[in-house]
Structures are given as structure tokens and as C-alpha cells.
């Protein structure tokens, strides 16, 4: 039985009085899409921040493919195959959608072709394909700050995918998107993930989305995993209906 893709052991951290992670131990198996739900301030984003090395836990460990990555800075963790998409898209606002991806590819490839024009690197075709996968091929040459929130969200994810990660952590991929759009975006997303064979963890508020797209759900509360199970189990669980869905609805 191989080690889980990502595993956390007894993560602890508190900000001031608030306990953001209270002894979090969690295993994430490869090839599945795990949704994290829970009320605001439950520590969902903090969990992603710890897993990617952005903040260091007071105690506890993060293991990726069985190796301890807790002390590493984000960039080193990223190089091991953990990519991240953000609640607020983190893009290079002076560059076009395609360039954002090309830069990501350049980061992945390192110094392969030092003085070649970015727009002429061999990864160009691959990146165009990626843009098609996330339905943004038509805006490839628009600077990203001209694009809609939804498009930027998708490009933010595409930029992460361009790194060819094995694990993708997403913070509310559909937040700030018109609810009519949400399902469309998730459709695209899940297809893209499947095509690229990427395991994903995504924080989500919309229970509809969770029900339709997650293979597994973890319920966060007060800095820890309260429940874990299949979408149907979880969404019908009384506590969840009380604590989470009630709050969201």
C-alpha cells in the first residue's frame, strides 16, 4: 500500500486567540477530488497555506509522497509537484492570458532557452491547448486585467496546471463567479483535471457544486476535520446541515 499523495500529521497553529489549525491529521489519496467545506474562519485557507509552506505550523508535519516538506518554502514545494490556485486570482496583470501560462511554463522548464522570445518557446502549443481546455483560447492575447473574474479564475488555475503538478490545491474556484457560471466552470475544471491526471483539493462553499463534483468531502470546523465521507453521506448529515449549509443558505 503506497503512501498517500499528501498527508498532514497533527498540524497546530493559532493566530492570536483563534485556533486556525487544531491537531489536523489528514490523508489525501491520489486521483480523487477532495472538497473542503465549513464555516468562515474554520481554518480552510490556513490549511492550504500550511500545506504549501506559505505559513509554518507551530507543530506537526506535512508530508508529500511520504517526504516531510514542512520546512520548505512554497517554491520548493511547488517544484515537487504541488500547485495552487487562489481565491483571488494571482496573475501577472501586465501580461496576456497566454503569456501568464508561458511564464508558468518557463518557470517549469527553467533556463532551457535563455534568449528566445517568450512568445516563441516550444511550450506555446501546449499552453494554447491548456487555454482551450479552460475555454479561454479566445482571450489568449488579452491582458488579464481586462478579463472577467470567472476567466481570471480559470486562467489562475490553468497557470497552476501549466506546472504539470500532481496535486492542485484550489481556494474557492467558483467564488466571485455568477452562480449561472459556477457549474460551467466546474465542468471545464474537472474535465481539465481528469485530462491532466491531477489530484485536487478544493475549498468550496456552494453545496451544489460539492455534491456534483467532489469524490470526497471533508468538513472543517474550529480548525479541524469534523467529518469526512462521500458527498451524499456528508450533505445529509444533520450537524453539517445545521453548522454549514444553514450558514451558507
Amino acid at each position, binding site marked *: 500500500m503506497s503512501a498517500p499523495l499528501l498527508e498532514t500529521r497533527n498540524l497546530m497553529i493559532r493566530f492570536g486567540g483563534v485556533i486556525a489549525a487544531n491537531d489536523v491529521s489528514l490523508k489525501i489519496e491520489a486521483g480523487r477530488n477532495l472538497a473542503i467545506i465549513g464555516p468562515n474562519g474554520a481554518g480552510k485557507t490556513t490549511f492550504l*497555506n500550511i500545506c504549501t509552506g*506559505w505559513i509554518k505550523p507551530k507543530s506537526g508535519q506535512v508530508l508529500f509522497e511520504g517526504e516531510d516538506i514542512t520546512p520548505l518554502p512554497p517554491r520548493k514545494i511547488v517544484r515537487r509537484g504541488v500547485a495552487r490556485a*487562489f481565491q*483571488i486570482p*494571482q496573475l501577472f496583470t501586465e501580461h496576456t492570458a497566454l503569456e501568464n501560462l508561458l511564464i508558468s511554463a518557463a518557470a517549469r522548464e527553467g533556463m532551457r532557452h535563455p534568449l528566445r522570445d517568450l512568445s516563441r518557446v516550444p511550450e506555446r502549443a501546449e499552453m494554447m491547448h491548456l487555454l482551450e481546455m479552460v475555454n479561454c483560447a479566445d482571450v489568449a492575447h488579452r491582458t488579464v486585467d481586462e478579463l472577467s473574474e470567472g476567466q481570471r479564475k480559470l486562467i489562475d488555475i490553468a497557470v497552476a496546471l501549466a506546472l504539470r503538478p500532481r496535486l492542485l490545491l484550489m481556494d474557492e474556484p467558483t467564488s466571485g463567479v455568477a452562480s449561472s457560471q459556477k457549474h460551467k466552470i466546474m465542468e471545464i475544471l474537472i474535465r481539465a483535471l481528469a485530462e491532466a491526471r491531477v489530484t485536487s483539493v478544493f475549498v468550496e462553499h456552494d453545496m451544489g457544486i460539492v455534491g456534483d463534483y467532489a469524490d470526497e468531502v471533508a468538513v472543517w470546523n474550529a480548525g479541524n476535520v469534523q467529518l469526512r465521507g462521500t458527498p451524499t453521506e456528508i450533505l445529509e448529515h444533520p450537524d453539517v446541515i445545521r453548522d454549514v449549509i444553514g450558514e451558507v443558505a
Partner: protein
Amino acid sequence: MNLTIFLLALFDGIAYAALVFIVALGLTLIFGVMRILNVAHGSLYAIGAYATVALTGFFLSLGLAPALSFPLMLVAAILVGILLGGPIEWLLLRRIYDKPEVLQLLVTFAVFMILEDVQRLVWGTQPYFEARALQALGNVTVFGVTYTVYQLILLPAVALVLLLGLRFFLRRTILGKLITATTEDREAAQSIGIDADKVFLLTFIVGAALGGLGGALASPTTSILPGMGADMIVLSFAVVATAGLGQIEGAALTALMIGLGRSFAVYVWPEVAVLVPYLIMVLVLLVRPEGLFGSPAARKI
């Protein structure tokens, strides 16, 4: 180095630090509130000195008492604040708050270049010296070394008053609170009905006046001549950056460090005296990237 020497160096250091602090105070206030590093501050310092010399020269020639030069220093400083600081903020800076910082900085750089020539056109190139204010206070002798009361006592006293005064003003008075509020979050401040434009104008006038006051207070101790602003401004930059931008107490501490460092250098190894301010700056920032009292800005994601 025996105790006497140590104390002498201490006195010299404090006297010098006081002056540096007063000049840096205006700079750090303006930066703290408006996020603008005002290169023209050096010119305001110089013009404050020139104005004082001109005023005292005129009034004392009417046979008035030398003691009058002290209120005249204040007048000169206020004139600088209102006649120069006001227009600079009103006509220039106000138009570029939305522009990148470097452009704002360059605007003040341009103003600096212009004012440098203005000084020369108005006051010519011959150095002025107007020490009657200083002579009026006489000397004190410590360990057989004569100091002027002006430098040994008055300057540090003024510096202390300004430090405490500004602290009180910013923390205790309504106006001060308005200013600090605007500093922390301009939008929020405006949303609760603070007129940020007025606050900025006022801040800049006060800051400019402080620069002018620095010059006014320096005038009895030094030759007033073209180019005197250029040196002062880099020194105050060093103070402000080392202190942590917008940190008043930090500026005081840094000025003291620089003043003492310099005077001890003159006693121990005169050749490095010039290096001291910049060395201190680099060393401090090496350990505390945000300056002595600065707080790191957390990146939200």
C-alpha cells in the same frame, strides 16, 4: 578614551543629532502620512536658513534686540511652510497622488532642482553668516571646553519639545487623530467624511515648516550658502529609512545614533566620520529590513 573625552563626544553628538532630527522630522511626517519622499525637503531647509538670515538681518538693523531672532526663526519656518510647502502640495503633488511613487519622487526632485537655482537668484552665491542669536545666549564651559549654550542646550531642548509635541498632537488631538486615520486607510477616512485633501495639505505645510525650522535653527551655527540643502537631504533620508518610514520616535533614536557615531568617530578615527550615517543605515536595515521601528507588511492571499 577617558571619561572627559567620552562626555565631550557625547555633548557634540547630541547637539548635532538634535539638528538632524528636527530636519528629518518633517521628512518622516510627510512620508508617514502621504507616502511621498520629499527630495525638495533639503531646499526647504536651506531656504529656511536664508529666510532667517534675511529677517534677522533686517530687523536687527533696525536696532531691535538680538533675542528677537528666536521668534523670527519661527516666522521664517512658518513662511517656508505656507509660501512654499502650500503651493508645492496644492499645485504639484495633488495632481500626482494616483501616479506611481517614482513619479511623485521625481516631481519633488524637480522642485529641488528649481529651488536650488531660486536660492542663488535671490540670495546670490556669497555665504551668509548670522550668529547674533547664538551669541545672545553666550557660552558654557565643561571640562575646560567651551560650548555655546545654543548648541549644547537650546537645540536639544527644541528637538525634545518637537518630539513630544508632535507625539501629543498625533495621538491626543482630534486633528492628529484625523491625520493618523488618513494615514492608515485613506478610503476609509474619506468614507467617514475626513477631507483627505485638506489633511494632506496641512501635513505637507507642517512638514515643510519643520524643514524650514531646521534650517532656521542651523543658521546661527553655519555658513548659509548654495548647495547646503543637498547634503542635509541625504542625511535625513538615511535617518528616515533607518528609523522606519514615518516613525517619529525612530527618527529621534536614529538621529542620536548618527550624531553620536559621527562625533565619536571624530575623536577615534576622523577619517570615517562621513561614512557613519550610511553604515548605520545599512547595518540596521540588514537586521531589521523595515527599519528600527517599522513593522513588516503582511502579504494577504
